[in-house]
C-alpha cells in the first residue's frame, strides 16, 4: 500500500503530475466536485493543528467525498495507551485514506507499516510534513513559472524547521538551484542536511545571520517561525523567538519579482504591513496547499484501486 511519509516518496515526475492535476482543479473545479463521492478520508490528528486539518477536510469535501475524524487528540484512544499500529489497523477498516498528524517523529512510518489504506503524513513531530512542501512547490511553480535557476533564501529556525528541510530536499532535485541560509547561530541548518543533501548534490549555499544583506539576491524568501513546541527549554525559545522580523523597510532592496513565503501560522516574524505587498504569497500558499492535497488524495486513491 503506497503511503506518503516524506516529500522524497514522490519522484520529480510525480510532483509534476500533482502540479498538473492541481492546475487543472484550479481551472475547472466542477470537473472534480463529485470524483470522490462515497469515499471517506479519516483525519487523525494526535496533536492540535487547525490549518492542516481544515485543509485536508476542505480538500476531500471539494472532491465530493466525506470526512471522518476524532474530535480532538485528548479524546482519542492514544490517551488510553493504544499504539499507533492498533489505531491505524482499526481506522483503516472505516476509511479509504488517512491523513495523520502525530507529535512523535516516525509515527507516520509506523502507521504506513500497519495500514490497509494509503496514509498521508500530515506532520510527525519535527520530522516531515510533505504536504506543506507540495503547497510550497505549487506556489513557487505558479509564481515563478518553474523551479530551475532560483536562489532561495530560508530565514529563521533552520534547525527545527521541518518545512525547511523538506523544501531543501525537494528543491535540490532541480537544476541550478542556490540556497541562502539566514539564521541565528543557535538555529543553523543541521550539518546532516548540509552534508547529505547540499554537499552531496554539489548545491551552492551560503550561511549568514544578516537578512537585509541577503535579500537583494533572492528569488524566493521563505520565512519561518521559531516554534515554542520544538524547544525543551523555555529560556532558549524566548531568547530566539524575535530573531528575524520582516518589515516593508527590509524589503526595499529586494527584487521586484521576489516572492515571500511562510508556512504559517506566523507570530510576528512577518509584519502585517507586508501583507499588502504584491510579493507576499503566504496566503496563496494556503490555497495551493488545499489543491495539492486534493491532487494527492486523487493520486493515492487511484493507485490503491479505490477510484
Amino acid at each position: 500500500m503506497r503511503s506518503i511519509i516524506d516529500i522524497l516518496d514522490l519522484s520529480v515526475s510525480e510532483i509534476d503530475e500533482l502540479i498538473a492535476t492541481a492546475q487543472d482543479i484550479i481551472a475547472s473545479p466542477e470537473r472534480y466536485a463529485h470524483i470522490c463521492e462515497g469515499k471517506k478520508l479519516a483525519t487523525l490528528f494526535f496533536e492540535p493543528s487547525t490549518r492542516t486539518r481544515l485543509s485536508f477536510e476542505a480538500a476531500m469535501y471539494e472532491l465530493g467525498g466525506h470526512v471522518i475524524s476524532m474530535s480532538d487528540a485528548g479524546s482519542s484512544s492514544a490517551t488510553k495507551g493504544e499504539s499507533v499500529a492498533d489505531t491505524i489497523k482499526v481506522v483503516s477498516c472505516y476509511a479509504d485514506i488517512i491523513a495523520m498528524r502525530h507529535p512523535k517523529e516516525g509515527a507516520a512510518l509506523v502507521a504506513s507499516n500497519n495500514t490497509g489504506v494509503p496514509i498521508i503524513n500530515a506532520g510527525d513531530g519535527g520530522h516531515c510534513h510533505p504536504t506543506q512542501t507540495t503547497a510550497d512547490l505549487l506556489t513557487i511553480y505558479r509564481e515563478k513559472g518553474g523551479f530551475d535557476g532560483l536562489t532561495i533564501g530560508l530565514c529563521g529556525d533552520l534547525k527545527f524547521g521541518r518545512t525547511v528541510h523538506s523544501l531543501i530536499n525537494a528543491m535540490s532535485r532541480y537544476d541550478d538551484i542556490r540556497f541562502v541560509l539566514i539564521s541565528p547561530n543557535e538555529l543553523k541548518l543541521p550539518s546532516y542536511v548540509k552534508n547529505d543533501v547540499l554537499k552531496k548534490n554539489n548545491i551552492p549555499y551560503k550561511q549568514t545571520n544578516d537578512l537585509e544583506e541577503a535579500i537583494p539576491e533572492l528569488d524566493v524568501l521563505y520565512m519561518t517561525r521559531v516554534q515554542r513546541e520544538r524547544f525543551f527549554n523555555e529560556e532558549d525559545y524566548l531568547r530566539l523567538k524575535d530573531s528575524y522580523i520582516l518589515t516593508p523597510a527590509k524589503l526595499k532592496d529586494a527584487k521586484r519579482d521576489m516572492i515571500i513565503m511562510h508556512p504559517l501560522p506566523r507570530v510576528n516574524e512577518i509584519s502585517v504591513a507586508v501583507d499588502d505587498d504584491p510579493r507576499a504569497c503566504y496566503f496563496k500558499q494556503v490555497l495551493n496547499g488545499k489543491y495539492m492535497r486534493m491532487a494527492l488524495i486523487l493520486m493515492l486513491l487511484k493507485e490503491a484501486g479505490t477510484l
Partner: protein
Amino acid sequence: MNVDSIQNGIVIDHISAGNGMTLYDLLGLDQLDASIAIIKNVNSKKMGKKDIIKIDADIPVDLDLIGYVDPDATVNVIKNGTLVEKRKPELPEVLTDVIKCKNPRCITSVEQELKHVFRLTDKEKRIYRCIYCETKAN
C-alpha cells in the same frame, strides 16, 4: 599467557583492541552458561594490538552485530578442535534491536513494542540512522 584451545565453539578474532568487552556485552555473552575467554591487547602483526573472544559452546552468533561493532573481526567456527569455517562479518545494511534510538522525540521512545531499526546511510563514514526519526546512532 595460556588459554586452552576450545573443542567445539566460536573464536572471534581480529577484534580491534578495546572492542572486546563491547562485543561481549552486546552479544549477551554474560548470560551464557559456558566457558568464555576474553583476551585483551594481544600482540598482532597486522593490527599491533587486538582482542580475542573464545566461546566454548557451539552457539549462533549475530554476524550483523559483530559487523556493526567491528567489521574487521573474523569469526572462526571450531568443531572437534579443528577450524571448520571462517566467517567475515560485513557492515550490515540494517540493524534491528541492536542499538536503541536515543531521540526523546522518536516514536520508539513511547511505544515499547516497536523494534529499534537503524539503516546504514553512509558506508564510508559508517553512519546509521533510525528509520523512524533519522537520528544518527552514536
